[in-house]
């Protein structure tokens, strides 16, 4: 563990929306290949924390380093940074005006990291991997929720990111579709992808996470292995939360 490089370093992060302080003080380090799950009651700042990591939200204080690069400074080319950070959203956010193949190919082609042919090949490989190669010509509106989310994962992977962020990827899904998305995520974790996952799927956290961060009220309350957090929580707020969800 000690010789793995630090992929994400968050140092005294603060984030406010107007007067509302959503993240009060967060410091975390995430190692390469680590799967970190963020747990916590709604409104605790989990999603905001995740969105700060790729600067979809600008921070109000503190700093974030991705692979050693300080990304919270003004002169940083944030688009370049984001190419290395894939994100999967609760509501999928597939491009409605593009078919599945175009959704996956768009960024690599537009950002000229691959030519069209290579991008198409890569897109088919990724769609195969998430089991949706036969849907390449379909439009997002023709897919089920689970299929949409698997396409969204393929789209994020098309840029060959070093880090994947998941913002409640299964919260908008019908129960019978949760499994297919979690299966893809498990596979990704097994391949050594660095993952930061906001989820309410305790089972996923228990099985896949290397570390669980428990957040409440804009603070990191407790962190540890799934066994430490889920079976032997120390903090009252963690115990209280787990009593409600387990």
């Amino acid at each position, binding site marked *: 563990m000690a010789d793995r490089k630090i992929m994400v370093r968050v140092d005294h992060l603060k984030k406010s929306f107007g007067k509302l302080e959503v993240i009060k003080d967060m410091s975390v380090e995430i190692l390469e290949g680590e799967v970190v799950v963020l747990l916590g009651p709604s409104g605790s700042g989990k999603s905001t924390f995740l969105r700060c990591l790729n600067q979809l939200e600008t921070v109000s204080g503190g700093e974030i380093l991705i692979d050693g690069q300080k990304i919270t400074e003004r002169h940083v080319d944030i*688009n370049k940074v*984001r190419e290395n*950070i894939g*994100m999967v959203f609760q*509501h999928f*956010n597939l491009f409605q005006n*593009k078919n599945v193949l175009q959704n996956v190919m768009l960024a690599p082609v537009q950002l000229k990291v691959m030519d069209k042919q290579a991008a198409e090949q890569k897109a088919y490989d990724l769609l195969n991997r998430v089991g949706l190669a036969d849907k390449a010509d379909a439009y997002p509106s023709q897919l089920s929720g689970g299929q949409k989310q698997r396409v969204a994962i393929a789209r994020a992977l098309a840029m060959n990111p070093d880090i994947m962020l998941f913002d409640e990827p299964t919260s908008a899904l019908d129960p019978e579709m949760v499994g297919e998305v979690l299966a893809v995520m498990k596979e990704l974790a097994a391949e050594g992808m660095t993952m930061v996952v906001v989820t309410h799927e305790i089972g996923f956290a228990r099985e896949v996470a290397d570390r669980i961060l428990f957040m409440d009220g804009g603070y990191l309350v407790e962190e540890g292995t799934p066994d430490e957090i889920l079976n032997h929580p120390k903090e009252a707020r963690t115990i209280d939360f787990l009593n409600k969800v387990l």
Partner: protein
Amino acid sequence: MLSILKSYGIMLIAAMGKTIELCLISLCFAMVIGLIFALCNVAKTRWLNVIGTVYVDAVRGVPLIVLAYFIYFGVPAGVQAAGFANFRLSALQAGVIALSMNCGAYMAEIIRAGIESVDKGQMEAARSLGLTYGMGMRHIVLPQAIKTMIPSIINQFIITLKDTSILSIIGFPELTNVGKTIMGNTFKSLETWAIVGVMYLIVIVSLSKASKRLERRLNVGR
């Protein structure tokens, strides 16, 4: 009625052609103006918002007829006073400028509403992949916005077509102006204005019918 059609028919048709020409040229410019100011208005930069708001409010706050007088008479007078004695604007040029500016302000609002109707997650997803704001607009947001905008754009097209009649006051030979000439020659006001009215009606009704069909076609498949 028949005698008017017989002696002035060709003139009326030519005037209708001029009317449509003026309208189409203005509309093209208005789309560009509208897009520019709509993008100003949805931008996250404060001074761009101010530019967009000032333009839309200023142009919408002035009657088209006043705008037309200002551009046809006022602007050349000002430019001549500034030392360019030969500066002139033709009625067509002034008409196109006035109509484009006017229509552009309304178009800016239509396009802004269209952009805002697209789910914010679409742009966020684009940005999360490393695409720039401009790429997200061009490839993702605007193509989706256009669909919701089409009925309003066609409505604006019809309004602009009718607004061309206002430019008869600066002497542009569009349909209403030619109607005035015919009335002056024949003194048959009832027939003349009935004919002119029906001509507008035919063009506008066929336009809105065509737009309904276009709308239906665009809704197929999505």
